[in-house]
């Protein structure tokens, strides 16, 4: 009967609200203030207005990291969700393999990025398993210093990201599949819709809610990717894997201690997350409503 006792209601909310205000809202405002200063190593610094924000546009490091982050997110979102969807449909169609299969493909998701990075750094090493495998298959020409070459390092990291979370995307799509009304699937097969036809006109539209979640999560996750490039390449070679988060971390905790500028780049990331997250959400939600 808490709704009749506003004082008790407030008491219930107070601890969570206090924690939220002190540890999220206050730092958010402080970050905005910080980004309008020239603070180094956390010292107060002088007020410089929008100078840091203006500097972002002409900072080639920031623009490069922005491009890297967007390209990475685009590849990961598309490939991870396509692989996840294909896996989910295949598992849905095969009840005998479904249980075991969906458990096995989730194992990479349970591993931390640090652990995945260890395993893949070794697999992708010049003398690692991937190159040995290629050599033993007579494909020596395809061997590569995957993480040491600026043209492949980012995509090697994207591959690890896709490997880790395709099973996760598949689990989300499979949950959507399991929720499909059986009558509809039966009716559509009676009408002769099978295979690709049934997927396009029956399953895919009905999977709209699952698609919204899977796409949004992979998008936000890949825009904020940090641990994989941090552990696998530390932003190298030649800055080719320096994402926005890597740059923020390096500015704040690297030698320079540019707290103000790091906070400024962080707001660029926030805008990106809100913008792309908002666009995707509203697009996908509208799609859900049309169905």
């Amino acid at each position, binding site marked *: 009967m*808490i*709704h009749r006792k506003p004082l008790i*209601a407030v008491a*219930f*909310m107070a601890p*969570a609200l206090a*924690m*939220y205000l*002190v*540890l999220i*809202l*206050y*730092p*958010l405002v402080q*970050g905005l203030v*910080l980004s309008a200063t020239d603070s180094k190593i*956390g010292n107060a610094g002088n007020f410089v207005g929008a100078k840091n924000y203006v500097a972002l546009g002409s900072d080639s490091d920031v623009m490069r990291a922005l491009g890297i982050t967007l390209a990475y997110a685009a590849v990961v979102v598309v490939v991870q969700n396509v692989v996840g969807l294909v*896996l989910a449909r*295949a*598992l849905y169609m*095969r*009840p005998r*393999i479904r249980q075991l*299969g969906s458990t*096995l493909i*989730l*194992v*990479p998701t*349970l*591993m*931390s990025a*640090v*652990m*995945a990075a*260890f*395993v893949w750094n*070794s*697999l992708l090493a010049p*003398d*690692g*398993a991937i190159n*040995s495998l290629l050599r033993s298959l007579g494909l020596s020409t395809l061997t590569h210093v995957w993480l040491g070459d600026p043209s492949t390092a980012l995509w090697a990291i994207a591959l690890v990201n896709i490997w880790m979370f*395709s099973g996760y995307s598949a689990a989300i799509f499979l949950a959507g599949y*399991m929720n499909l009304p*059986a*009558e509809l*699937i039966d009716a559509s097969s009676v009408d002769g819709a099978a295979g690709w036809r049934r997927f396009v006109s029956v399953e895919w539209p009905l999977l709209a*809610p*699952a698609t919204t979640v*899977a796409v949004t999560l992979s998008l936000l996750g890949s825009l*904020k990717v940090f*641990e994989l490039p941090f552990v696998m390449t530390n932003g190298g070679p030649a800055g080719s894997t320096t994402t926005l988060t890597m740059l923020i971390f390096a500015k*704040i905790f690297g030698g320079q201690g540019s*707290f103000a500028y*790091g*906070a400024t780049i*962080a*707001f660029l*990331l*926030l805008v990106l997350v809100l913008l792309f997250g908002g666009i995707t959400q509203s697009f996908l939600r509208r799609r859900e409503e049309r169905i």
Partner: protein
Amino acid sequence: MATTIQTTQTASREERRAGRRRPRRGPATLIGDVILGIAVLLIFAPFAYTVVTSLRPASDLVKDPLGWPTNLTITNITDAYSKMNYAQGLFSSTIVLAGALIFTIVLGSLAAYPLARISRSWATWVYRLFIAGSTVPIFVLLAPLYLLLRDAGLLNSYAGVILTYTAMNLPVAIFFYTSFFRQIPIELEEAAAIDGSGPIRTFFVVLFPLLRPVTATLATFLTLSVWNDLLVPLVFLQDPSLKTVMVNAYSLVGSYTLDPSLLFPAALLGVAPLLIVFAFLQRHVVSGLTMGAVKS
């Protein structure tokens, strides 16, 4: 609500029956089964490879990294155990995880209760404020949070990290608890009130136990994200005696970069506690990961 549950149950039962009834399994389905099986095994393979490699002697690994394991040993694992200060890391990680779990679950469910029951506009705004918090990436708070914890004397303390995780995860907790509370009939509270139970007693004795499914799901989700996180403890727990499993593991990278006979067992030790816990909580793992994927 009750009717929806019933229809989905009948539907899945029918569907299961239909699946069993499927009469002919031609060669095409068999090929499909095989391709899917191979795909699943390929995804699982790096993990299996990690386990096998961890158990092979370093000398065998140098000769043939992909070879079939002939000699098995646990030296690598015991070696990694001491080099990554595993016992100490396990202690830190467990304290941080336990603290974050308790605070997030208790504070989140307490706040969600009035937010679900009060339909006044101020409550809606408080709810929206909480939910908006989930869109803020930790990177935006990194610099100011570091300064805040420093000034509060909470750098290099478990409390600072636990508070950070709690605040960051409260939006998720409140989102799920609020939608679950809305499904609990209000008559239950009225009955408790007639029996003379106050709001606090009603919450802890009547309502909180009913939240068990969401709590289990949320706990799974939190365990994964807190246990596996590197950034927060790396920045806020730099004292060697406080480092978590992930930070200790990360420290190995600098000194022994690519040695699989060290990094693979380290990776295995890092996930082992999670795998053990999840073996017991299996059905909550999938629901924990797919939280909110399906509208219900």
